Every structure is written in C-alpha cells, then in structure tokens.
C-alpha cells in the first residue's frame, strides 16, 4: 500500500500528464493543419488571421482562463455542457493556450521553406496527400520546436487551469495548481516535492524532443 501523500502525488502527476498530453495532442491536431494552410496559401483575410495568431501567442493565459470560465459557466453559452470544474475544461483551456503557439511556429516553419518549394513538388505530379507528407517531413524540425513550446506553455500554466478547473482534490487538481495551493498554505516541503516532479517531467520531455530535433538535424 502506498503512502497517502505519495499516492496523491502519483494521482495528480498522472492527471497532469493526461490533461497536458490531451491538450498538446488537440493543439497539434488543430494547429499544424491550420499553420500549414496559412503558411502555404494566399487569401484575402490571411493577414488578419496571421495577426490574430501572433496576438494569441502572446495572450496572457489568465485572460484565456477568464474567457473559458465565462463560456463554460452554468449561465454561459456553453454552460449546458457542464464542463466547468472538470478536467475537460482544463484540457480545452490548455488547448486554447497552446493552439496559437503551434499555429505560429508551424507557420514560421512553412515560411522558412523556399518560396517555390510547393510549386517544385507539385510539378513532379505528386498527389496532394503525399505532398503534405513531404511538407511535414520537411518542416519536422520546426514542428518539434512547436511541440516543445506548446508543452512548455501547457505544463507551466497555472492561472487559467485553476480558474476553469477549480483545483478540486481528486478531480481537477494537477501539479501546478497543487504547488500553488501548498505554497499559499506554507507547506513548502510538499510544494517542493511536487515542483521537482513537474520539473522532472518537463526536463524529460523537453530532453527527449530536443534529442529528436538534434538527431533529425544531423541526418
């Protein structure tokens, strides 16, 4: 039988990984195609969309949390979904924070390719889905940078997930909100152990992604 404190630490660590992993996955699934579309097409409102993405990259997470709270509140437009103070609300908010980062860095990666790259691949008669595969392969270093930035953004964020999650023990408490709570209660030892686990996770994931990035660059 595990020590109850250790059991709690394992539980909130797993919840943190689940919330962060889901948010990262959703941000990548949405952000990479949008980034590729914005980076490789020309249309009238493109400039406006790119400006919005840039603004989103610098948006304070607490504002995202506030908007999330208003939307998901019982009286809000999405109140009927009953998501406020659930891990799903935290995933949605974290996704909203990471999405502009993924779009922006994907856009930059596509923009760093030769202007004629797409035309040159198109003139080889390669079908569209294979062209997209080649493009993703070509910008994979930039995409890894997007993953690292998004992961950092999600893992280190506390204000927004606290607002929409409520830091409910056994329900929505994750490492960041737990650290904040224990620090405010003066329980520095517990906060430190949780911070070490959080930092360890971040280091492990960032290290893995950086290794992937560097080995890809050498190839």
């Amino acid at each position, binding site marked *: 039988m595990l020590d109850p404190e250790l059991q709690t630490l394992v539980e909130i660590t797993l919840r943190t990984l689940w919330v962060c992993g889901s948010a990262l996955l959703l941000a990548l699934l949405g952000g990479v195609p949008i980034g590729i579309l914005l980076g490789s097409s020309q249309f009238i409102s493109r400039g406006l969309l790119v400006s919005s993405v840039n603004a989103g990259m610098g948006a304070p997470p607490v504002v995202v949390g506030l908007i999330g709270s208003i939307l998901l509140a019982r009286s809000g437009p999405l109140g009927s979904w009953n998501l406020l103070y659930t891990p799903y609300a935290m995933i949605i908010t974290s996704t909203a924070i990471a999405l502009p980062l993924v779009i922006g860095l994907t856009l930059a990666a596509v923009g760093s*390719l*030769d202007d*004629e*790259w797409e*035309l*040159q*691949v*198109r*003139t*080889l*008669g*390669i*079908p569209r*889905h*294979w062209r997209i*595969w*080649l493009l993703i*392969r*070509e910008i994979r270093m930039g995409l890894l940078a997007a993953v690292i930035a998004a992961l950092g953004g999600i893992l280190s964020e506390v204000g927004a997930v606290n607002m929409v999650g409520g830091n409910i023990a056994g329900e929505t408490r994750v490492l960041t909100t737990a650290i904040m709570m224990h620090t405010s209660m003066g329980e520095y030892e517990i906060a430190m152990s949780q911070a070490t686990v959080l930092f360890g996770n971040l280091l492990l994931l960032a290290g893995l992604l950086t290794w992937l990035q560097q080995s890809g660059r050498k*190839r």
Partner: protein
Amino acid sequence: MIEDTQPPSIALSAHNLHVRRGRGKDAFSLGVDYLDLHAGEVLVILGPNGAGKSTLLRALAGLERSVAKDLIRGGDGPVTLVFQRPAALSGSAEMNVRAALLGKGIPEEVKRQRVTRALDRFDIQALASHDARTLSGGELRRLALARAFVLEPEVLLLDEPFDDLDAEGQRILSLDLQQAIEDTNVAVAMVTHDLRRALLLADRIAVLAPGRLAQHGLRDEVLLRPNTRDIARTVGMTNLASGRVCRQAGGVSWIQIEPGFEVPTTAALNPEQEAWIGIRPEHLKLDVGRGDGESIGKAVVESLISDGLATVATLRVHDRRFTTHLLSGRGLARRLRPGDPVSLAVRPDQVHALPA
C-alpha cells in the same frame, strides 16, 4: 532505305495563352497565340529580362493561373518543370529522386530501376547516399534533372538549366542533357540567357518580346531571318544598320549604309527602298582575297577581345560599329592590331534585310 519524313509529333500545344498578374504599375501580362512543343525536340525560349520567359514555362506546366488557356496534349505522359533554383528535399539524393515517384502506384522493383537509371544518366550515382542539401550548385542541377527524368516525362520544361555553372560544367551537363533527350524522345522547352548553349541544343527557337511571343520557328529560320531588329539583337545578330537600296542586279540588291559602304542582299526589296540589314558576326568576313563573299567596304579595327578560343573583333565604319569572330591565336587574329585598316566582305545570301 526509305527515309522517315514524318514530322515529329506534337507533345504539347498552347493556344491563346494569356497570363495576367499583379495590378497597377506592377501589372504583367503575357499573351501567346500559339506555341507547339514537338517530341524529341528542344525549343529554346529567348528574350530580354522581364519578357515573361519563366512565366511562359510555368503556364505550360499548369502552374500559372491563366486568364485564358488552351493546352492540348499529344499524349498523357507527365509534364514537369525544373526550376532555375532547384529545391532539395531533406534526405539523400536518392530519396529526392525516389520522391518524384510517390503515389504513382509503381512497383518497388521498377522504382528502383528507374531511380538507378536517372542517377546514372546524370552521373550522380556516387552521390546517391549524400544529403541533398549539402550538394554543390552543379550537383543539385544534376539531381533536379535526374528527378525530372525519373518521371519519364513527355514534356520537360527547363528554366535556366546552366545558370551559375562554369564553362566546363555547362559543357558536360549539356552533353548529358542532349543524350537524355535523344534517349527518351522527350519534348523540351528551355529558357536560357546563354545564347551559345541555346544554339548548341536548339531545334527551334521562340523569342519573347515583353509580354508577347514575337517570333517562333526553326532554329536557323529565327537566327538568320529575325522579324525585327529587337529579335535580331536577341538572337545574336549584332551587325545591324539602316540604308537605302542603291542598285540591283541579278537578284541582288545593294544597300548603301555609308558612302563607299554598300551591302549586298538577296532579300526581295524595291529600288530606292529604305531597309535595315542584319549580319551575324560569324558571317561578316575580313576580306583577304580568298573570295569570302562580296567586298562591301573598308573599316578600322577598334578592339580585339579573345576568350582563348574566339576573338571578337570590333570594326569601325565611320560612326558605326560591326563585329566579327576570328579563331584565336591563328592568322588574322594574331596579326591584327587596333587601328589597322581592313576590308570587309559578306555573302549576299547571308545578309538579312527587311524594309525599314
């Protein structure tokens, strides 16, 4: 043996091609009434900067949004374009060539054979495993050509394929390219600013004036019979002058350019008609009594510039300048000095003339 006199089949025919791009003072438009590409032939597209040469290639490749376009294909083989600055995909040179076959449903064994053949054709088999992004400019051009030929194209469009290569690199690549064209019977349209290379490869020539196709025909027809002075300059007919028909005899008209400088031509002109003449530098001879055409008058050597193989002699006739080519290091090229007087001669059938 019965000689095959069948004309080469048309691989791609463009009719009423009209491309319009940009707005205001940046607006650009290109109109081509018709242009044919024939199997196994090289069409060289010449023209001044900004005339629309690359735009025409892109339009033929279907990459340019056209206002109007009627492209008629002779077959259903691939049409591909090799860009002026080819892009290397990340990965090996072999992967770059193999990528062209993605999604085409070709069996692996056939793919392997085609990739090997394409790499061999452009002599880059030894670079197959090298990272394509580390290749030199010349190697990258060869890779881009291998990537195009692995498709076994029916139409190949080349934008400045010899750009940035040194003379030896150009020579070797043009030989490999010529061989590949012969082997595959591909129809080629090639944009180049290198007139010498163009003349070596071209079966036919198209000359663009800004925004339109100014002349299009068999190589010698365009080289020797340009429709306008601008086209004449573009195809290297550097000796241009205006004058008036002063006498006619035996199907030859004599055009007086300056007093004592009369140029004969077999072109159909009327008596006293104003006309302009054009003589290719290789057709203007220094008259040393060997019967190299009709003597046309005196000139003074102004300068002699040699590249080791050919010497370009600039000759002054009053205020006009003419040029001729001599073989470097031999005969006249060795003896002549700036300021020397010379006599000029030309064959009447090698003088192009049109009413002014």
